[in-house]
């Protein structure tokens, strides 16, 4: 469904009039996520090596690479689910994980910075004792301190957006994988995050359910959400991205706009990777 469609710049097309609709030339130069000199090892194995990456507000950045290349680790460092060994990450100008004095952030402070990001996991990780609506309202009420009424109104809007309104009262165990993931997206959006992080959002889905989740993410990109997406869906990456990053053994070896990346990659490794993932 995404093949051959020319990549739309974020913010074009379906934006509502009251939103500023940034096109490519007038795009915000504000930086949503800035990653500098990021390194991380697991048991002596270097998973990330001096990675630099900037995500502009409203941009969709997809991270590609074979398994074990460090792409999920990179994403998980952004909200400090993994602690990098060195380097820095700023979310909207605020450094995460390390406070002004250069010490590890106190838990409460860390939680506040984390709340500025929204994350969608490969395995959904919904909270099974809460119904769909309450999965979405849980964090806004108990983390952001929103009133129940306000959180529910927002949750219902978001469930509408991801096409899950009819299931608001259902419990996660009764949903399909695709439905769970759409709820998980609504749950993350309910934090009104500055950046959405997607960690292989379709990898745990039956093939016929992949489309419904990708369609939702594509809608979000059209609405101008800032997103960082780790994925194996090439056609999708090509269709939604403003920037494609290719990781190999913890290094960014290619970083380009999707057209260049998919048709005219400069490294042999990337061309090889694309060929293998073609069929």
């Amino acid at each position: 469904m995404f093949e051959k469609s020319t990549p739309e710049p974020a913010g074009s097309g379906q934006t509502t009039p009251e939103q500023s609709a940034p096109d490519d030339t007038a795009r915000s130069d504000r930086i949503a996520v800035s990653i500098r000199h990021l390194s991380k090892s697991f048991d002596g194995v270097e998973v990330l090596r001096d990675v630099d990456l900037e995500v502009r507000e409203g941009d969709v950045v997809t991270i590609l690479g074979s398994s074990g290349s460090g792409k999920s680790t990179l994403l998980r460092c952004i909200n400090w689910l993994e602690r990098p060994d060195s380097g820095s990450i700023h979310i909207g100008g605020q450094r995460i994980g390390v406070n002004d004095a250069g010490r590890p952030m106190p838990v409460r402070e860390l939680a506040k910075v984390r709340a500025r990001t929204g994350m969608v996991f490969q395995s959904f990780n919904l909270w099974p004792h809460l119904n769909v609506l309450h999965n979405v309202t849980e964090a806004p009420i108990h983390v952001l301190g929103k009133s129940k009424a306000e959180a529910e109104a927002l949750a219902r809007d978001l469930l509408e957006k991801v096409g899950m309104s009819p299931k608001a009262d259902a419990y996660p165990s009764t949903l399909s994988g695709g439905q769970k993931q759409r709820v998980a997206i609504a749950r993350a959006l309910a934090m009104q995050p500055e950046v959405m992080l997607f960690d292989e959002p379709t990898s745990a889905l039956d093939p016929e359910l992949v489309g419904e989740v990708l369609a939702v993410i594509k809608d979000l990109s059209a609405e101008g959400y800032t997103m960082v997406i780790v994925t194996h869906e090439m056609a999708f990456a090509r269709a939604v991205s403003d920037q494609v990053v290719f990781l190999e053994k913890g290094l960014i070896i290619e970083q380009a706009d999707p057209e260049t990346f998919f048709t005219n990659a400069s490294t042999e490794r990337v061309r090889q990777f694309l060929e293998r993932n073609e069929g």
Partner: protein
Amino acid sequence: MSNWEILWGAREQFWSGFASTMEIFGLSISAAFAIGCGMLYLLEGSRPRLTVPVRVFIDAMRMLPFLILVYLLYYGLPAFDIRLDAWWSGVGALAVYHGCYFAEIFRGARLTFPPGQVEAAKAHGFTKGKMFFRLILPQIVMQTRPLLGNQLIYALKDTAFLVIITVQELTAAANSLSGTYFIPTEAFIVVIGFYWAVSVVMEIIIKQCGRFSAKRGFDHV
């Protein structure tokens, strides 16, 4: 006058013993539940220095005969100038002892709690306390419901030990009647009826609670 008629005549004693047993039971299992939850929270590791002592304490209690603990509180504590009357010694012993069992049951379930859910909570900005009380604990309780029901029955039966430190509960009533009129068989049969009745009612309630968790996919009742 048959033995049964004698007991019927003394029904007031049974009733007050039963009321006392239920009071002790209700109070001590509520406290035990709170202690179990509290210990599980300490085991989450937000205060690392407490983790090992809590584990040791739980194991120490599990390996201690309940009666010894009761003796210790009632006869042992006065040596440290702490004097509890029989009733509070009994309630305290039940609460601590079964609290540790609750903690052990919870701990087992916590070990298999999906780490992804904890990550999701962190990613959504939850701090440890809120994550524990809103997301982890409710699921652990639902998941361990059958084991908790079992533990409640143990706790109910353990209230009978308190007769030894002179608490005037149900078994004490039967004891005194059997002594006064020398009708031990009938007196204890009546008491067994009381314990069974309470246990059966608890079983039914716990089973009904299962519907709540089954709806959420936690078990299949």
